[in-house]
């Protein structure tokens, strides 16, 4: 049985490290994030942001330390945990040669949903793609791909949603749609976002984390952050360059 001690914490990270040989991608990362929060992760390239996101979303394993997401251990309880995770990336994660509906049907089967047809209809309407559901994804614009990708991510009603540079490559209109969709599901969901967009990240977040060279530079609640100081620190950190 997976150990899911009833908890208020969405993320519980303790001394998380990821090394291979001499290369340290993450070392000694520790922080807690409560449920319903929105965590923005900032940092220069090579800081370990993607690695951190991968470990938290069970795509990779840590070398040492522990991480619990929604009370589930990311290594030991990964299969159960995956039922509650949604992932939105700069890649659409969709099959171009299938229609929008077929894509969602496929993932509905993979997640073994109970009433797939209903749920799919519901989501397609929510992302305003119902009229295009029979069209091949290869014909979709970037904005449409992102919307469908959100539908895919929310299909199984996950409790926590990971976002990996979701705004990159989007035009302002598509960005607005993404914003409004996130706002719609903001309640009762926890978000973890990696982004290079300092302004957007700060705007949306309730907690902020800056990583550099695999270590935590800053972890703070949004209310305690002074924007100017934060900007300065951020620029200084990013200026440190690749680890």
């Amino acid at each position, binding site marked *: 049985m997976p150990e899911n001690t009833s908890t208020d914490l969405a993320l519980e990270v303790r001394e998380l490290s990821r090394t*291979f*040989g*001499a*290369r340290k991608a993450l070392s000694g990362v520790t922080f807690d994030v409560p449920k319903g929060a929105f965590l923005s992760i900032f940092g220069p390239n090579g800081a370990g942001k993607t690695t951190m996101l991968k470990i938290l979303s069970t795509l990779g*394993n840590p*070398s040492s330390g522990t991480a619990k997401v929604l009370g589930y251990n990311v290594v030991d309880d990964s299969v159960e945990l995956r039922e509650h995770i949604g992932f939105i990336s700069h890649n659409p994660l969709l099959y171009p040669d299938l229609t929008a509906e077929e894509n969602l049907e496929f993932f509905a089967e993979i997640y073994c949903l109970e009433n797939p047809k209903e749920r799919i209809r519901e989501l397609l309407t929510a992302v305003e793609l119902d009229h295009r559901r029979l069209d091949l994804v290869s014909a979709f614009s970037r904005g449409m791909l992102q919307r469908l990708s959100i539908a895919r991510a929310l299909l199984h009603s996950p409790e926590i949603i990971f976002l990996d540079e979701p705004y990159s490559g989007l035009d302002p209109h598509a960005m607005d749609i993404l914003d409004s969709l996130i706002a719609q599901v903001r309640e009762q969901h926890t978000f973890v976002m990696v982004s290079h967009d300092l302004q957007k990240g700060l705007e949306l977040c309730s907690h902020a984390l800056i990583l550099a*060279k695999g270590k935590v530079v800053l972890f703070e609640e949004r209310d305690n952050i002074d924007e100017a100081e934060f900007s300065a620190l951020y620029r200084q950190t990013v200026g440190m360059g690749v*680890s």
Partner: protein
Amino acid sequence: MEATARKTFLGIPVDAWMYGLLFVGTVLTTIDFVLAFFVAPLVIGAGAGGTAVINGVAVSNQLLFSQKIFYFHVPVAISSFLVFFFTAYYGVRFLMTKDKKYDTKARIATEVTLLFVVLTLVTGDIWTRFEWGAWWVWEPRLTTYFIMTLLVIAYFVLRNSIEDEERRATYGAVFGIIAFLDAPISFAITRLIPSSVHPVVLRTGGGLTGVQLASFLMGMFGMLMIAWVVFQFRQREEFARERLDAAKAALEG
């Protein structure tokens, strides 16, 4: 970087053990050779200057000398397979622990395997020249070792085509395990299904006398010792290089 203390084993420095073993290993292999050529009697029944009847076929004395190559060819063949086992073993350890040092060990073991496998093919080639008069025969053992050569080369080609270190180690480990499973299966299948082109004449040294067996075993132990020493030297070299790389990275960090 602090100097590592000179390690000792039973009071004698490890280095000395290494060189000692290398020397002993070489000596044993040489003795094996010498005995094979000058002392070990020819296949039972053959007189020095005449012919012998084996399996109902008259075989001239010259061809029987080809059997001498067995004393080198078969030990090195068996040794290469034993070393290949370590490729798979360290691969398994790596997959279990994700510790880079096992990947390094697996790679070095495969390098040593490559060396031995090539020696197997070369001596096998010499053997077929004497035995069949042809420079190559697709008989089961040689075919299997030909495949093993390709498998080992494939291992290195695979590693070289991957940039990410951890993926390179993981794929290497998995392929190493599969390749190690494939080798004996190849041997079994080529033995059990005769190739209609080249009928297999099985002469695996059945009926070895005491001296023959002794020189055979000595050769094997000698070779395994050499293999082990080469492995240790390479390993030390690799680990030193890795520590150097780590120190460099830490300085830049």
